[in-house]
């Protein structure tokens, strides 16, 4: 990669995705394609005008400057951003003050703070810095100096969160995106915990020059984005990403700001279209013309028990719509092949030209069995597959099915225990909360 490239990549550009960090809180934000109005980030009740970040390098820290200080606070405040060298820190405050040995003298009766809520509000409105406000809080606290060093630190952290108005802008990475989405609502990304995602990438043997096949119905594109990241920029590797809906989930693929060169090596294709075109070779484009571009709204999965799902399993996701649009299409002048059709065609061509080097299947809600049966024939021999599911039972069934075939070996059903630690002077211990939704992986190799 040339120096200029590296430089360009590290600069915040219009139209790109960024990660905004305010203390421990992080959020994905898309900058508008043109700089101007409407560049507003919502942070809870607060609104931040983001234009100032454009052209700055990632990792730059900005101070949030109130722009409507005369308005009432409860209405939600607006801010603009001003670049600063670094966020101010409260760390030194704790060293300035004496502290107690233990908490025997501390009773919290709600009167230890002499400043009233009103007075604190006034300090904020007067535009005092977080440090100044916290300074006054400490001065007016009757118990602060009696607290132990540890609880003083805790107190400062808490106040820091409340009064500190700094943002740092980061470049989106798989790790950051996974963390943000998993914390917010892990179900949204198919409960794909980072250790499971990391193992999918390993067990799938992703390299920069291979062809990989992914089925994913529920990670917002996280799995595809991760595989594509591992395949790399300016390499020859390719990824076919199959999905069951009308539209693939691509939020997190877009969030990675991939270059065209890289994104062009990703084919996103509906699994029904692909299978039909692959096996019903001579299929005329006319037949399925409009079968998907007619709707194209939701990417949500159909509940497998609903009647709608029956239709989906039988044939196409839009059997009825297709009949309808077929008529329209044939009465029209032939127009350019829709994008999805040429994309399906090129994926079919790819899969016919060679076997894939790794297969990953992430079925968010649906049963993986038929998907595994359907996709294994695309995998090369001596090549690995990984199936992830949030539930164990469907993978057990897949395991039994695979055991009965004699072309699959070293099949293992895995699940992880992941725990994080607080590491501090004399206070190291496992984090109080852990997360037990790591899901299950079924891994193995295809042989002759």
């Amino acid at each position, binding site marked *: 990669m040339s120096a200029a490239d590296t430089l360009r990549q590290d600069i915040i550009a219009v139209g790109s995705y960024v990660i905004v960090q305010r203390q421990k809180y992080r959020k994905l934000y898309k900058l508008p394609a043109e700089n101007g109005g409407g560049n507003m980030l919502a942070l809870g009740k607060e609104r931040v005008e983001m234009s100032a970040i454009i052209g700055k390098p990632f990792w730059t820290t900005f101070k949030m400057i109130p722009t409507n200080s005369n308005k009432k606070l409860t209405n939600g405040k607006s801010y603009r951003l001003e670049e600063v060298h670094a966020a101010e820190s409260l760390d030194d405050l704790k060293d300035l003050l004496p502290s107690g040995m233990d908490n025997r003298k501390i009773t919290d009766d709600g009167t230890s703070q002499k400043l009233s809520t009103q007075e604190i509000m006034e300090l904020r409105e007067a535009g005092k810095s977080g440090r100044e406000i916290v300074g006054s809080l400490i001065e007016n606290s009757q118990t602060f100096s009696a607290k132990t060093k540890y609880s003083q630190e805790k107190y400062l952290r808490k106040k820091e969160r409340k009064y500190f108005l700094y943002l740092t802008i980061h470049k989106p990475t798989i790790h950051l995106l996974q963390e943000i989405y998993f914390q917010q609502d892990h179900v949204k990304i198919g409960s794909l915990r980072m250790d499971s995602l990391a193992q999918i990438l390993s067990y799938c043997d992703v390299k920069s020059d291979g062809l990989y096949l992914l089925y994913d119905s529920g990670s917002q594109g996280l799995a595809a984005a991760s595989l594509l990241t591992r395949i*790399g920029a300016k390499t020859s590797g390719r990824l076919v990403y199959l999905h069951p809906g009308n539209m693939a989930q691509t939020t997190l693929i877009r969030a990675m700001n991939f270059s065209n060169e890289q994104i062009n090596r990703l084919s996103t294709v509906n699994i029904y279209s692909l299978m039909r075109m692959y096996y019903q070779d001579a299929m005329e484009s006319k037949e399925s013309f409009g079968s998907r571009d007619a709707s194209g709204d939701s990417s949500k999965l159909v509940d497998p028990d609903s009647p709608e799902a029956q239709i989906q399993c039988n044939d196409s996701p839009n059997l009825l719509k297709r009949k309808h649009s077929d008529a329209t299409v044939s009465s029209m002048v032939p127009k350019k092949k829709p994008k999805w059709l040429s994309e399906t065609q090129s994926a079919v061509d790819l899969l016919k030209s060679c076997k894939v080097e790794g297969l990953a299947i992430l079925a968010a809600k649906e049963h993986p069995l038929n998907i595994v049966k359907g996709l294994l024939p695309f995998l090369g021999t001596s090549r690995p597959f990984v199936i992830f599911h949030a539930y164990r039972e469907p993978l057990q069934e897949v395991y039994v099915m695979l055991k009965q075939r004699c072309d699959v070996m070293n099949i293992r059903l895995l699940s992880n225990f992941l725990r994080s630690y607080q590491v501090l002077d004399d206070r190291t211990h496992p984090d109080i909360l852990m997360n037990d939704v790591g899901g299950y992986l079924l891994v193995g190799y295809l042989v002759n």
Partner: protein
Amino acid sequence: MSFNKAKEYIEEGDTVILYLGPNNMHSIDVVHKIMNKKGELTDNVFQTIYGALKVPSLVGEKYGAKVQLSRGWAYVLQPTSELWTVTLPHRTQIIYTPDISLITYLLELVPGSIVVETGTGSGSLSHSLIRIIQPLGHLYTFDFHEQRASLACAEFEKHGLSDFVTVQHRDVCADGFGEKLNNKADAIFLDLPHPWLTIDHAVKTLKNSGGKLCSFSPCIEQVQRTCEKLTATGFVDLKTYECLEKELSVQYKSLPVLDLECLKHKRISEEAIDKVEKNEEDRRKYEKILTVTHSSSLPGHTGFITIATLPPVFARIIKTS
């Protein structure tokens, strides 16, 4: 030469995995002659529980093929980093796939990354690092044990990976990673008894635009000292994890079902007696379920994985306290 890209057929000089069972896999070199214990060249015949395999006969076989042994058969597979990790010759303790996966993920490695690793040890992790960063990236791996360094070097050569890796014999705690690597690395990985002694060197070696550092230590005291040092030298976002992989073994189980309902009623007629006999049968009824069993012995601890980020120079803050 069978590690750098996926291939279809076995060629002379390849390293292949001979799969006899989930707990019986071997990596073997497909060469005609090997050195025996006495230092003489002999025909390369590999002994398995199912009989002998004339290794050169594998040349031309398809990867994934079933091969005949005198008393059974085996599969030959192309090695992946995962298969290599479970079959490699141990020269040290090694890191296994669950930890390797998390380490490489947290280091945010991509093709093209420049990575520094120490110590090389048995090269278990190195193979995974190289897999990810090739063909544009490079791994610089260090070990202060001369023989381990040279054996690893020979192994990379044999595996067709030497374009992507440089092995150096060096004490990194004392001598750092070398001037040549100043501001070159995207990521640094440490698996050493005293990781904290390398952090000052690591700061010099990571790019001015910042990078990641990951340390793997079995003991919490090591983690503690390393984290303290990392914080003091400007690293941020420190996280420490522990990850254990559990293998579940899928099995059908038959559970006897007891019929207690029939006991509530008195038997009266002939018919009822028949019924009772039927119930007796019912009592012997089994319900077949598909479930898993957990292992009674599994790794309970491997190591703590600490990940830290060094911001670009302009955003680094060294706290003085």
